[in-house]
């Protein structure tokens, strides 16, 4: 019988690396007054076969503009990335100083909860009636 399994996995190396890309590159606001722009944060995922939930706590996301690190997440948030599967989940909106942003840092909570279907077992002839297994962290 195929089963839904849920495990909690310790994330050992945090904060973590990510692959970064970026968009436009027009002129920089350079007035002497402190000016601001806004950044909204959006979560999405690239799925893995049989994973039905993948819950991570994102503790912080910061962008660096060369002189300061700017937070773009006002509080930690628990996100189930697996439910998104390409859809976009709006998380937060924050004001940030203008400038040229060159790097970013993401920190996660210490555990991940992964729910998956064990496809190695034989499915029942009738409708699937999965069971949940939760392994303590």
């Amino acid at each position, binding site marked *: 019988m195929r089963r839904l399994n849920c495990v909690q996995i310790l994330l050992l190396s945090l904060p973590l690396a990510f692959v970064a890309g970026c*968009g436009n590159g027009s002129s920089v606001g350079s007035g002497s007054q402190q000016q601001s722009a806004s950044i909204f944060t959006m979560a999405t995922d690239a799925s893995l076969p049989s994973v039905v939930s*993948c*819950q991570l706590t994102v503790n912080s996301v910061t962008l*660096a503009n060369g002189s300061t690190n700017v937070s773009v997440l006002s509080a930690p948030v628990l996100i189930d990335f697996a439910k998104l599967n390409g859809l976009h989940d709006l998380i937060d909106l924050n004001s940030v100083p203008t400038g040229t942003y060159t790097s970013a840092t993401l920190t996660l909570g210490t555990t991940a909860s992964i729910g998956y279907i064990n*496809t190695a077992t034989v499915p029942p002839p009738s409708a699937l009636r999965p069971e949940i297994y939760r392994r303590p962290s």
Partner: protein
Amino acid sequence: MTVPLAKPFVLNSADLVGLRMEFDIRQSLAVDGSGQITGAVNPTFHMQLLNAADANVSIDDFRGGYVGAAGNNSFVMQGPLGRQWTVTANNNTQFDTGDHMASFTANSIVDVSGQLNPVTHAIDASEISLVSTDKFLMGGLLTDARPPSGAATAADLYVRSELPAISGINPGQITTLTLNGSEVYAIANLPISLTTIVFNNFSLAAGQHVAVGGVVNTVSGVTTLTPHRVILARQGQAGTWVPGSTLSTAGNNGSFQLTDDSTAGVLLPTPLTVLTTSFTSFVNLNGGLSALSGTTAIPLRVVGLVLIDSNDPYTHSRRPVMVARFVEQITP
């Protein structure tokens, strides 16, 4: 760990930019030779800063509690982190479940799709659905509906989300819903008034992504949800195109088969029939449906609605199919 952006991103005064944070589950979770999760995690994110109008930072199925009206065409809702957002409708906004703003109350939970307005920072809504009238919502995957034919009297839901969070039923658990046919059935993201004909208690199936609004009861320590609204929501499925399976009636109207081994795939038929229409968007597939040709399997991600087709074009039997809104060729 801090990593330089591949290219510096310039933010000017009053700009509105979206930070797209993609968790690459495929890259992050190790699997063994048979595709089973090993438990090893190497978190990998892809981050992009994008203009607010970019489709890659559009808002899908944003859910929150209705707070109150904010003018004739706007209202305020509360989302994650307690933040309140203004939602603005216009003449093009689709009210998918047929419920308009005037009917929203403090007990309403709404589902909004659209884009953030760069000037007002309100959500310019393309779609609005009323998903709960009871101040509680549970979302997840149906894993079973009983009996196998006729009107369902019970369904099992793998809970992925709750709004608000409650004790007794938690994400990651399966809860059984008792159904009696009095529930309101509707489809989010399908703005036609006939959705109750194609989605109702006779057409529930394992693998469907639903949002269920209702009342939570706890008796003798057992928490259950009495459903009042069952809303079918769009979902993503990944897999590979089955060579030779494409059937086209006219243009992008037609179908193909997907060897669907992703997420809900094990709950749905394999291969999964995907129906396409003139409203289906094909991404990275020049030529649309006709690009699905040749003798080699093509990796795809399909976003759409899982519905029961009384006459599947391949099996000529009654079975779940996906009606596609997006079909995207992906890099494996």
